[in-house]
């Protein structure tokens, strides 16, 4: 059972790698107090999702879904749906990254720190005053 599980993970190597990447990104998100590093962790998680989707749409030995020489057989091309979903993901991640970076700039100008804990302490002190 255990051996077959590991074998299966090796057969699904793209998914396994994407899960590990996702975990690394999540760990960065939790462990680092620097806001810029948190955004980097978020981007690593995004990348892991793209890898997962792209590997789900792949079929061994088939071509990209661009019709060549009028061949329109299902057995000739990979699945086009996950590719479109990856495109959506990339666009959304670009806009969220820009938004997070803009917020970080404004926070730094206000509190002169990128450390989330320090920012929270300063914000609490401000509230008490």
């Amino acid at each position, binding site marked *: 059972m255990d051996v077959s599980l590991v074998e299966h993970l090796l057969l699904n190597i793209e998914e396994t790698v994407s899960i590990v990447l996702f975990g690394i990104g999540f760990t960065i998100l939790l462990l680092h107090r620097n806001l810029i590093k948190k955004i980097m962790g978020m981007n690593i998680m995004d990348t892991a999702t793209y890898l997962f989707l792209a590997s789900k749409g792949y079929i061994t030995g088939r071509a990209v879904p*661009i019709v060549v020489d009028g061949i329109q057989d299902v057995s000739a091309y990979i699945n*086009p749906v996950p590719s479109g979903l990856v495109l959506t993901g990339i666009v959304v991640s670009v*806009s969220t990254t820009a938004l997070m970076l803009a917020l970080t700039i404004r926070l730094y100008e206000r509190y002169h720190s990128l450390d989330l804990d320090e920012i929270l302490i300063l914000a609490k002190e401000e509230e008490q005053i």
Partner: protein
Amino acid sequence: MSRKKDNYETSRWKKFKSWVDGETDPLDHGMEAHEAIPPREDIYDSAAHEKAVKEELSKIYGEDRRAVLRARGIRYFQRFYKVMSVVLCLGIIMVLLWTVASLPITGNASNPDNNEVAARYIEKGLQETGAVNIVTGMILDYRAFDTFGESCVLFIGSCCVLVLLRLDGDSKNESIRKMIAESDDRHFEPKNDIILQKCACVLVPIIMIFGVYIVLNGHLSPGGGFSGGAVLGSGLILYLNAFGYGKMGKMFTEKLYKRITLCALTFYCLAKSYSFFTGANHLESGIPLGTPGAILSSGLILPLNICVGLVVACTMYAFYTLFRKGGM
């Protein structure tokens, strides 16, 4: 240029040095640090004053002890937090890996996600959308409202960044004007970098033509509005870096940005609403599909790709200028 840079660095260095020496705490906005309580020599002459000093000292020491205890508590908490977060992440990875181990094997044609939807896109896509690139046909014809949502997400993202970072040049407020003067970073770099300008002269036209090629061939080859728009935006950014805001302002202003984005999004919305309305009611839309493989083919996909490309290029450029200077 070098003199200015020196000044800039010495001021930073000075701040850092004073912080290391314990004179100022940068987090307290330049206030004096806590431990620098000045010794009061004038109150040592009488007993009452001595008592008062002792009381003050004991109070300080009591506070100190409490602070030490609190610091120790925070340290323990931080260690606990780190261990727990690593444990949590490992747990999530284990659960997800377990799930992956029971997923169907990658690259197998009989996987459940390769169902009749994908088959329909591949078999009928060319006839129904006229696009050789099936992914483009899918995202700009079958699922065009999804792509419209994406463009809107990008537009809303750039609006939020604009709200957060924009500095109004005509503002009467003194502090905002000071911020604009501070964010003008042209002082720290050479005015006319001849190497960069010559490279940009060669590279910018090539990059722009390549971007236009990607946008216009979105339905024929890999590419489309999003990737081509990103290439166009990077060309604009390179031009701005080489020649500065003065020359860029003659060509690309905030007004133009607003007009292009608004027109592109409105055209996209109207065109796609029309084609969905006619398609859903089985009416003749009157949009010719053309011969697949020609550049003027596949109905609405080419104009929609151009719209998306314009929106993306403008948004990329707007992001850059806003992050750098707070306005175009």
